[in-house]
């Protein structure tokens, strides 16, 4: 380690976010550039631990101490090698990952953790800028053909790994362009689409073929906005017959809905039905979104990342007001006793979007939506709840008597998470087993109950983080490779169902 006392010399530092008024006027990413020296100092804060908990906290097993040190030593080309050793797409995780690594950083026990994610970002952006990110085509084709269904981070990671293993990889995507949630869930201000495109170019150069607007199986009615208009539908069984192996990476797309009176009113939308058109507009594939917050009072139900994505989008669409409702109580600012290091810290965080405005309301639930008499939502009636622990220890939410309130709103966005995979379509066609959490079941080699058909990502894990998705894609690719070739040298960072420490 270059500077063994770096953590005592320097404090945690991040580049400033651009001023709110400025960034609300565009859709560009919110961070200012970080000077090289600042990044190196942050790298010097890494303690090169005997047990790097960050490296465990990262589902990918990113070699964090190694590249922190390389950044400190100003050896960026070596740093990006270490970064790519475990992570196909550091530019995605460097922007989008909530950074469980930082939650488990040893320095975080009694100080601010190392800015791991920012350093990751700096390394990969430097690499792109220097032209160090080049295609790594396979030297020997195996002649095997693999279909990857879904082009979110799991599918893309798997596709890249399999292509490098020499297989002919075809990625099937029902939307207009590849990327899945990366492209249509994540707003531009968190990740500009060019970031995806340059990586897709690399995959293409490595021989990955993308077929967009192709839906493998009929989409579920609840996700009718997902396929591109006029998408062709391919029977999954036929697909399996055509390829030597199929890897399903279709995500956990089934949204959780809110069954309360008034749900049918106009102006109440699932988050994805709001975010995707907004992204299509940004991409120029749509002139204006059918659902806009402009000039409206908005309520977002759900306090998670998707809620925050909606929030930032709402701000940029110039809403009159926006409130975000969360059923859970407000988390503490520091770890609670039952939430020890190095588990994921359940603490109050302020996302960039929240910094831009809006009000968060905790411990509330929605009782009904009130209409304006013309079939449009006018207001939301909610009440406060308290958490009680039932017999099984599971938390239940009990309304607080007399706490009812009403919020006027013309647009309601439901960002309440997902309920697993779509049960129809490919799952039904192939006769895949689905577990009791609504995910496609996989054995320890990522295989479904159908020979040659593998699954990875949220489709088997359930909704999760991008970093898990990439880890799943990489790991499943190794299994597919072994299935096809009898052995593999591909890395497999995780096993199916593996969880973070808790």
């Amino acid at each position, binding site marked *: 380690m270059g500077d063994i006392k770096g953590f005592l010399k320097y404090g945690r530092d991040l580049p400033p976010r651009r001023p709110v008024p400025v960034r609300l006027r565009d859709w560009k990413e919110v961070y200012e550039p970080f000077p090289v020296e600042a990044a190196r100092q942050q790298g010097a804060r890494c303690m090169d631990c005997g047990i790097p908990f960050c490296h465990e906290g990262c589902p990918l097993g990113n070699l964090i101490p190694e590249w922190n040190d390389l950044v400190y030593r100003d050896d960026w080309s070596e740093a990006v090698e270490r970064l790519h050793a475990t992570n196909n797409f550091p530019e995605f995780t460097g922007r989008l990952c909530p950074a469980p690594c930082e939650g488990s950083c040893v320095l975080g026990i009694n100080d601010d953790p190392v800015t791991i994610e920012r350093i990751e970002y700096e390394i990969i952006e430097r690499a792109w800028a220097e032209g160090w990110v080049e295609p790594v085509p396979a030297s020997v084709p195996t002649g095997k053909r693999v279909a990857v269904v879904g082009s979110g981070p799991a599918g893309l990671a798997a596709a890249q790994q399999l292509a490098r293993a020499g297989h002919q990889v075809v990625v099937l995507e029902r939307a207009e362009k590849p990327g899945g949630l990366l492209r249509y869930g994540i707003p531009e201000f968190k990740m500009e689409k060019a970031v995806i495109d340059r990586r897709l170019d690399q995959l293409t150069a490595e021989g990955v073929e993308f077929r967009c607007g192709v839906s493998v199986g009929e989409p579920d009615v609840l996700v009718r906005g997902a396929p591109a208009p006029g998408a062709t539908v391919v029977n999954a069984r036929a697909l399996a017959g055509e390829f030597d192996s199929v890897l399903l990476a279709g995500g956990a797309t089934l949204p959780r809905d809110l069954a309360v009176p008034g749900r049918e009113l106009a102006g109440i939308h699932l988050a994805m039905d709001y975010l995707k058109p907004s992204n299509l507009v940004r991409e120029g594939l749509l002139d204006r979104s059918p659902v806009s917050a402009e000039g409206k009072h908005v309520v977002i139900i759900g306090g998670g990342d998707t809620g925050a994505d909606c929030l930032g989008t709402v701000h940029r669409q110039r809403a009159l007001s926006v409130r975000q409702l969360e059923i859970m109580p407000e988390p503490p600012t520091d770890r609670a006793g039952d939430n020890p290091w190095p588990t994921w810290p359940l603490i109050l965080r302020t996302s960039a979007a929240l910094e831009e405005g809006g009000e968060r309301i905790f411990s509330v639930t929605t009782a009904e939506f009130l209409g304006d008499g013309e079939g449009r939502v006018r207001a939301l009636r909610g009440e406060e709840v308290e958490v009680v622990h039932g017999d099984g220890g599971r938390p239940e939410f009990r309304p607080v008597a007399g706490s009812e309130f009403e919020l006027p709103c013309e647009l309601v966005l439901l960002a309440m998470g997902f309920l697993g995979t779509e049960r129809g379509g490919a799952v039904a066609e192939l006769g895949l087993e689905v577990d009791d959490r609504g995910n496609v079941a996989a054995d320890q080699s990522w295989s479904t109950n159908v020979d040659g058909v593998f699954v990875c990502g949220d489709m088997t894990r359930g909704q999760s983080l991008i970093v898990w998705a990439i880890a799943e894609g990489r790991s499943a690719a190794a299994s597919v490779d072994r299935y096809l070739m009898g052995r593999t*040298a591909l890395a497999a960072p995780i096993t199916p169902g593996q969880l973070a420490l808790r």
Partner: protein
Amino acid sequence: MAPSGPRSGLYDPRFEHDACGVALVADLEGRATHTLVRQALSALEHLAHRGATGSEEDSGDGAGILIQVPHDFYAAVVDFDLPPRGHYATGVAFLSRDADEAGLARSALGKLAGEEGLVVLGWRDMPIGDASLGSISEAAMPSMHQLFVAPAPGTPLAGDDPALAIDRLAFVLRKRAEHEIDECYFPSLSARTITYKGMLTSHQLAEFFPDLTDDRVISGLALVHSRFSTNTFPSWPLAHPYRYLAHNGEINTLAGNRNWMRAREALCESELIPGLDRAFPIVTPGGSDSASFDEVLELLHLGGRPLHHAVLMMIPEAWENHRTMDPARRAFYRFHASLMEPWDGPAAVAFTDGTVIGAVLDRNGLRPARYWVTDDGLVVLASEVGVIDVPPDKVVRKGRLQPGRMFLVDTAAGRIVDDDEIKEALAAEHPYAEWLDAGQTDLEDLPPRYMLTPQHASVVSHQRLFGYTNEELRLLIGPMAQSGTEPIGSMGTDTAIAVLSERPRLLYDYFTQLFAQVTNPPLDAIREELVTSLLSTLGPEANLLDPTADSCRQIVLPMPVIDNDDLAKLLYVNEDGSTPGFRAFAIDGLFEVEGGGAALRAAIEDVRARVGSAIADGADVIVLSDRNSTEEWAPIPSLLLVSAVHHHLVREKTRTRVGLVVESGDAREVHHMALLKGFGAAAINPYLAFETIDDMIASGTLTGVTPRQAQRNYIKAASKGIIKVMSKMGISTVASYTGAQAFEAVGLAPEVIDEYFAGTVSRIAGVGLDVLAGEVAARHRRAYLDRPAELAHREREIGGEYQWRREGEIHLFNPKTVFKLQHATRSKRYDIFKEYTTAVDDQSAQLATLRGLMQLRVGALPAVPIEEVEPASAILARFSTGAMSFGSISAEAHETLAIAMNRLGGRSNTGEGGEDPDRFTPDANGDLRRSAIKQVASGRFGVTSEYLVNADDLQIKIAQGAKPGEGGQLPGFKVTAGIAKTRYSTPGVGLISPPPHHDIYSIEDIAQLIHDLKSANPAARVHVKLVAEVGVGTVAAGVAKAHSDVVLISGHDGGTGATPLTSQKHAGIPWELGLAETQQTLLANDLRDRIVVQVDGQMKTGRDVVVGALLGAEEFGFATAPLVVSGCIMMRVCHLDTCPVGIATQDETLRARFSGKPEFVETFFEYIAEEVREILAALGLRSLEEAIGRADLIDSADAVDHWKAKGLDLAPILVQPELPEGAARYCINAQDHGLDRALDHAFLERCRPAIEYGTPVEVELAITNVDRTVGTLLGYEITRRHGGVGLPDGTIDLTFHGSAGQSFGAFVPKGVTMRLLGDTNDYLGKGLSGGRIIVRPPLDSTFAAEENIVAGNVILYGATAGEVFLRGQVGERFCVRNSGAVAVVEGVGDHGCEYMTGGRVVVLGPTGRNFAAGMSGGMAFVYDPYGRLAGVYNREYVDLEPLSSENRVWLKDRIAMHLEATGSAVAARLLADWISASEQFVTVMPQDYRRVLEATELAVAEGRSVEEAVMEASHG
């Protein structure tokens, strides 16, 4: 005849060690008398305490005497005629007790004698008196028959000395008899001398052999020896003396020496010994080190060299780095080094051929040898002074043997021959320097040759082929190339050993380094560099018995590791005809990778055959290379390649005709280099390490160093590393380390060991060639990938051996287990604790540990309800925390552990850093911060009388798991004011713990230290802490015989201290092996009942504890786990002072981050105890006591089916020796420490008024050398009442007359004056704690005191306060680690003031070499009128300065006190002319200390905080 008991389980008699007391007595004129024999026997009895007895008091370990053949006596007692004196040979044969068999042996001997040109004159039944013999000795006793033989008529006698010529005939007869006749052993068979010896105590010898008390048995010289063996397995032949010598010490390089001797036999010829080849093998397999040494010495002597010449060949002094040595003498040694490697190890060898008698000391001077000469020509030399009563006025000279020096009495010439004279004469015999000039070539003088630089891609592919990891580049190779030193790590190792690892490992990983503990000392290769040497020679050897100019036709290698250019020089040595006479052959070591083990075996045979034909074709140098691998051909592991060839050539007896060089891709760590050397390579070229370094520089990964410098740095780090590995085993020269096989294998199959690593210990079987080939194949596949892009961005594997990585080796402490353990103990959740222990035990079962392979036989006994199991409190009392010093860890962490253990009724351990007396009394809330276990380590920091008195247990740390065989260092920046206070040192000044205890060089020494500590606190138990390695059980048995109350067996993996990574990973073995061996050996020796066995090393769960108990432990230590509970997250930076959780740091900011609480630690131990109870209940046991030693409750039958581990055989671990009914498997008896026999009882009562009321008392009495540790019990009584303050000076005034035993005045506190009129032995004033000691010759002595020796070695070791005045000279290592005493002495031996950190020393006479090595504090004032000090002091740590005016005043006072106390003539002379005398004093000033003094002065002047200024200065 088998020398010792049978092999069983993990016990093997070849692990046995011995040591002893030795003495020689001679009449200068060679006048033979019976008086002299009696004096020798009396000397033997005075050395009885250096020998030992086993479980029976009357079965000794061995005693014996060697005298001149008493011709007149034999002529009188035999019933046949004897030829004149010297014309026949005689000796006692040890034959079978079965009369028929003995008769057969006798007639066989007659026949052999005839074949060798001798006739049997007759036999005499040796009279014996075995009445007092113990049953063990008696049972093993042979029958004794004295044989008389003479040359048959017509047998030619070579040379002009008939006795010597007859001895040569008798030699071949004796060798043949021992080889060809069952049960036949001759202690001696000679025309000149005869040995009487046996498995006897010193007192029994004369009684057993009535001859010895017969007035007619006369001799002009005698050697006697009293043996202390670590075992009590009965063996009569192992007693000393042998045919030519008695030995006190141990040969560490024995395995190599034996192999080399065997290989040399083919080239050994001598006209003097006809039929020499019939005497082969010279070295008897299974003999002891002393026996082998004697056998080779005998060959060299009978082959034509005077005995003392032969001795100097085998034990040369340290000539390599001796710059001022006479060139002729240097040439003598250098020439002989090309004939034979040294037999290295601590040794005091007394030898005689019947005419000359003498002794020599090894280069380190690690054994004591004192001599004195009387005015009537009696010469006595012995391990101790005072072994014969001689009136003081008759003594004309008292001296000591010095390191590397020889003492020789020539009774024919009637004089003592001076060391210089002996060596000058020998050096002048031949023009050695000319021979060397003509024959030897320095490597650097060979013409240069060059090799090509490889490309990056090929480097990477090679790195994959040999399994290089990123971690190795980052943590090992990079730092070595950058700084030239070996990298350091902390917190031990918790990864799987090689045979249990899921991953392909290098063959090197299956071997662990042996290290010295107790029976011999490790060395300090840094501070005592002058005795070490990296030099070795490469090339053929010649006839050992006929040295000529040609014998040294060799290439001299300055370093064992050579770069690519040097390799090229050797490979193409005579390419252009420039170096005729040398021929090098390169041979590829590759095997067909598809063919697996069979192909590997075939390839090795092929290599052997090719080497054989190369030798036949005249090769002098063989280069074994793994460079040229291909897609089909993979490299044979270099170690296998070298050792397979080496052993093959030893067997073929062609080994000494070539030098082996290895061009190795897999060698990169120090451990690898050491192994290659240890198994026979002369030079190693780790080419891939060099290519890696070049590549790292080219790619910018390694910066700030040129490729050339980086390679040099790497070679330096690797070579110094080898020295360090050697020095752990006490081996000083690379030449004798080569082939010494100082390693143990763990997890290799017998097929591998027996064929390729013969003689290496490997006890639990393991993998064979198939697996080894498979491991190579796995790496080979990565190098020759069919689809390379699969490993995009992954040039090398990540690693994870030193720091945890997901893709790396399993670590028992990993994110999950650390987290669960902390969470469970902090939130008091037993359910989470079970998750933690389950995780650890599961990992363990996934082959991380040997214990993981063992299943507990639940159900073998009916389970018992848990309520019936003993309470947790009973279990908790058996728990202790590990030794971690205040200094290595913070006060907060240290006291947290102490408070927790005191609350629980367990024990915490001070570690070696002393303890603040503030902690000896309870706090207001009732908590006690005192550590129950007080450690006594080699540094002796803060080991005062008060410290020892405030202990329940006193633990002698021989070794620690993290780095057995090594010392430690606390850098100056960690020595804060608080630490300096408890360690009695100076803030900001670095501290060194030496590798050895300077009062334990041998097994009898530890008996002495145990006795000292027991005397310093009779209420405390004394522990000896050992680290598991092969033979640890035998050492433990020795320790039990040395009266230790407890023995602790530490696993290799434990250890929290900072250590070179090589030691962390590659020294020592798992505790399961060490503990089981200990239990088996103690039981087999009937010693288990008197000693408590403790175990520690990565103890983490209740299951670990139970397995420990079943294997034989009754107490358990935990170190890492309680630290983790206290907040440690295995940062492994303890050595950097940057611990981010405030544990291993002294930095205030970081200490503030400490989050541990005693409650967490309590919870941890309570949970462990609870889990132990659960397991006991399941096993059907009601207490831990019931579990101890129940190895039958462990089942290893279903050991997991794993590609590597399936070859393991754990059965030897589970062997339980057959025991008599009711024999205890744990400790039930207390040791008899013999304190009631201490001389202190003669004056304790008279001192009572002084102790109780401070009334002054004076006592005067006689003393002898058997009175050891005098004054220490008195000191205990004083400190017990008065604490560290003691009594007013001089309250108790004791005067002794005579020769005092060892440890005179040890730990004596303030208020006691001890005055000795006479002389004394080693360890005077050990740990002196404020007392005053005066030694001067008796008033009627006639010699000049300042020219004679008044006291022995290692005086004032670890003293913290007090005053000493010594009138006369003293031995080696005066004031070693003194930290506060003030001493005046009139001359010191080598290594004076070593590691001193405080106090003042005045030397009024000569000093030896290496003065002030490692001295970081205090001052010395040396009277140096001839300016000699500048040539002999160690410059690394101190400067010489003129005397300051302030010190001049102090010094004058001190010398005046010396004069007053001792009547010193020197002092009187100096004071008489003080003005000019004082000009001739030199001040020895440590640089560190000077810097601190200056910083202090400056701070005072500037009005700043002194402490801050000092600490700033120490950060440099």
